[in-house]
């Protein structure tokens, strides 16, 4: 979407302009990104939001005229402060990169050369761009850079290798490198995805401070709208390789004009509990599988015939807020349809009166010789869901594994199923016990045997626990697939033919096929897109209510739990920091850690 000279919400001139950018797969020529146009003004932060297959990362690296092997920039232009980036000669391009526009990578641990000290890697960018007039100048700048990102600047730190730094520190080094030569534009490619919530909050703050103090313009690429909500001045939404809406933060959150944006907003978990979580059925199409017109058509509940044939043009009332949808005017009138939450979930009556199904008493667990769980106690109740929330290393997965009998090291304490003590190892448990507790794993890409068909995968628990005839077994499989909203035709497919969301549904179906009493969900949505995550959470909540299973929901995302759990245990470093009813804990946290977690979790305050 080109913005002719009008001045938008931000002050200042246009620093970066992208017009009609088109990136294709090499050599097939299939579109990854197409017709992408936007502009960033002086001092402005533009959030580029998209889920998987949106093409946002590809668009981001194009701003530095770079594409990975397998992709090629096929058309369009990128202009920064008057310089045409895409047609720059190699020498000029090198000067640009790091000098005029710099890049903060997604995974700093991979982006730092493991064989070089970080001091070398920081200094070389200063040298390459001939910063300052002497070595002393550069060394001073180096120290300054490190201090700005709140890292030590002494000699011993500078001589370290990347692997000797923590994830957060590595990311700060990457940020320091980006700001080194005071560029005009910085491209940040999901720089906090690899970090946990607290570190993420710190890093975001650092980024915000630095962009303000340097007056630098930034493009912040992310899949998480909540993260960018407090950082970006304007937001651009991408879907299936195209920009579908762009506008100021206020405009979008007050009333988005594109059906996808609206749905995306509704899919973001709300920690305050004012909003319900609603997913989008289906998934984003890959390059080569998109319909000719608007790619969102198959998933859009407002689509008309024209949508599948013609891609809508760039439209809008002002230069500030642009959208590409045939029916945008109707949406501009309608307020955001923020349905209320399923309050029945967290306000479940008599939670504490429900009988206990699984009792965990004073359980300590070890990882080799180190104690990682320190005497925790919890109850999983009938018909209820307990959420285990914590960051990495908190011990939540360990606890879940202990309950499931999948923890290979020493466990002290008692775990009981309806009063009977459970053996440590699942192999030593009775068949009935193994059947009663089913575990759903985090990664849908790793929990299904790629060599088996869906039928064979679902058959496994059925064969182990029940004596059914062929027909009966098939019936059971169709039934569980139905419960997870999948069609029976998937039975003869292989996992790789399914999307991430579908695979996770199959994993859930597999768990249900055993007719369990307890369902343990271990970060089951972490690998999924926001919209797909929301759909899965909806499904799980629904299943829990209908089937009455007890659920243990493990997650690092505090914002999710109101949509699914009645009780919550907040964990840190192997201990329960807080334990109680969800409403109570989230509305009135007692522990400092919980309070901190609540403040650090990015939220989206939508204007009604």
């Amino acid at each position, binding site marked *: 979407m080109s913005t002719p000279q009008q001045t938008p919400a931000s002050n200042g001139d246009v620093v970066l302009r992208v017009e009609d950018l088109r990136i294709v797969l090499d050599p097939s020529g299939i579109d990854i990104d197409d017709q992408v146009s936007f502009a960033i003004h002086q001092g402005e932060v533009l959030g580029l939001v998209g889920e998987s297959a949106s093409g946002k990362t590809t668009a981001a*690296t194009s701003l530095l005229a770079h594409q990975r092997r397998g992709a090629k920039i096929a058309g369009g232009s990128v202009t920064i402060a008057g310089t045409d980036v895409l047609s720059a000669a190699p020498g000029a391009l090198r*000067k*640009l*990169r790091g000098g005029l526009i710099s890049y903060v990578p997604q995974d700093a641990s991979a982006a730092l*050369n*493991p064989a070089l000290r970080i001091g070398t890697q920081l200094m070389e*960018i200063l040298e*390459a761009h001939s910063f300052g007039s002497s070595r002393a100048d550069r060394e001073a700048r180096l120290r300054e850079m490190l201090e700005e990102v709140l890292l030590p600047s002494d000699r011993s730190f500078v001589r370290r290798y990347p*692997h000797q730094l923590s994830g957060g520190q590595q990311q700060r080094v990457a940020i320091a490198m980006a700001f080194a030569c005071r560029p005009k534009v910085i491209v940040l490619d999901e720089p906090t995805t690899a970090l946990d919530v607290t570190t993420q909050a710190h890093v975001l703050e650092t980024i915000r401070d630095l962009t303000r103090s340097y007056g630098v313009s930034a493009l912040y690429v992310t899949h998480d709208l909540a993260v960018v909500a407090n950082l970006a001045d304007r937001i651009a939404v991408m879907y299936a390789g195209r920009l579908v809406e762009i506008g100021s933060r206020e405009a979008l959150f007050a009333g988005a004009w594109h059906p996808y944006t609206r749905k995306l907003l509704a899919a973001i978990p709300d920690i305050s509990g004012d909003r319900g979580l609603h997913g989008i059925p289906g998934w984003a199409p890959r390059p080569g599988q998109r319909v000719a017109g608007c790619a969102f058509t198959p998933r859009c509940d407002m689509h008309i015939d024209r949508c599948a044939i013609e891609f809508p043009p760039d439209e809008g009332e002002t230069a500030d807020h642009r959208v590409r949808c045939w029916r945008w005017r109707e949406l501009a009138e309608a307020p955001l349809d923020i349905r209320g939450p399923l309050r029945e979930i967290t306000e479940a009556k008599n939670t504490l009166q429900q009988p206990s199904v699984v009792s965990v008493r004073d359980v300590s667990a070890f990882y080799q010789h180190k104690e990682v769980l320190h005497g925790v106690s919890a109850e999983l109740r009938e018909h209820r869901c307990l959420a285990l929330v914590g960051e990495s290393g908190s011990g939540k997965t360990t606890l879940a594994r202990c309950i499931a009998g999948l923890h290979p090291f020493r466990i002290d304490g008692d775990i009981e199923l309806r009063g009977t003590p459970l053996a440590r190892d699942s192999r030593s448990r009775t068949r009935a016990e193994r059947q009663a507790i089913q575990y759903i794993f985090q990664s849908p890409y790793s929990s299904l045997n790629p060599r088996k068909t869906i039928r064979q995968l679902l058959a496994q628990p059925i064969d182990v626990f029940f004596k059914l005839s062929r027909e009966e077994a098939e019936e059971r499989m169709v039934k569980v697939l139905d419960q997870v909203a999948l069609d029976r035709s998937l039975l003869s497919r292989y996992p790789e033919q399914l999307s991430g969301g579908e695979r996770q549904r199959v994993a859930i179906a597999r768990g249900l096929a055993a007719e369990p009493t307890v369902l343990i969900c271990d970060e089951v949505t972490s690998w999924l897109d926001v919209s797909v995550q929301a759909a899965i959470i909806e499904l799980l909540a629904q299943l829990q209510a209908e089937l009455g299973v007890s659920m243990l929901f493990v997650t690092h995302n505090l914002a999710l739990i109101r949509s699914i759990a009645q009780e919550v245990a907040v964990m840190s470093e192997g201990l329960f920091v807080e334990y109680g009813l969800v409403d109570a804990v989230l509305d009135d946290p007692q522990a400092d850690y919980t309070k901190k977690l609540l403040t650090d979790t990015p939220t989206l305050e939508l204007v009604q």
Partner: protein
Amino acid sequence: MPPLLKLILIRLGLGVLTLFLVSLIVFAATQLLPGDPAQAILGKDAADKARYEALRQQLQLDRPLYEQYTSWLAGVMVGDMGNSIVQQDVPVTDLLADRLINSTVLVLFAALLSIPIAILIGALSAVWRDSRFDSTTNLTNLTLAALPEFVVGILLVLFFATAVFNWMPAVSRVDSEVPLSQQLDLFVLPAITLCIAVVPYISRMLRASTIEVLESEYVMMARLKGLSGNLVLWRHSMPNAIVPTLQVIALNLAWLAGGIVTVEYLFGFPGVGQALVDSVANRDIPMVQALCLLIAAVYVVLNLIADVATILISPRLRTGLR
């Protein structure tokens, strides 16, 4: 104790253990047989009483097994491997000394020839990926890597000694009077054969690891920082690409310890390999034991060097992380 030193000492310890077990196997293979080893070894020659007795004496077959082993091992440690059966009264170590030198020179010659060539080819194919050069080298490597080394040797002989020119002697007739340094032309064909056997592996490895490095995140990052092509290649890529290649180089050198067997035999080169073949044919057990032990030891030592070198080169391992 610094973790680095500890790591290295552990490796050394394991190496020694391996050598120990190797000696056990060598011993077991030759003397730990059901029935009478001397009988089995001599076969019909056992009728010759003198030889039979001499062999029994040599192998100390009258003593209990573990004593046989320990005294043999003790002998190995001090360099006394007994006398050759074929040339009685001549210590094995005497017979091997010269040959060992010859073989070492041959292997070094082959290594000095192969390593630079392989590195050059590997690096160029990576940098000029998918070019004509790359595809041709790829195919050549595939072909040469498949061929057994004696096939390569014979083909070379066919080519140089017969069909085309009459340059090289088809068989190395070493004049034992003349010092080897003046008969260098005898090294050429064997060295070239060994070289051809080894270059494909090293260059393929270097190509693969260079490509992997060139496509890595940190090289992409280096480019996005605006660093020059040279810096990206030499400072960022090469140090990382070299490591797996070093291992392959060491492994191939170790392989050469075995490869010389057929090659020396083929060219009649007076080295350790040919000695092994001869002694096996003659059933000269003490010689066989000594040679097998020697070759295996070289293998183990070279692998050890490869391990330690890798540790020293990668900063991760150097700073003690696993």
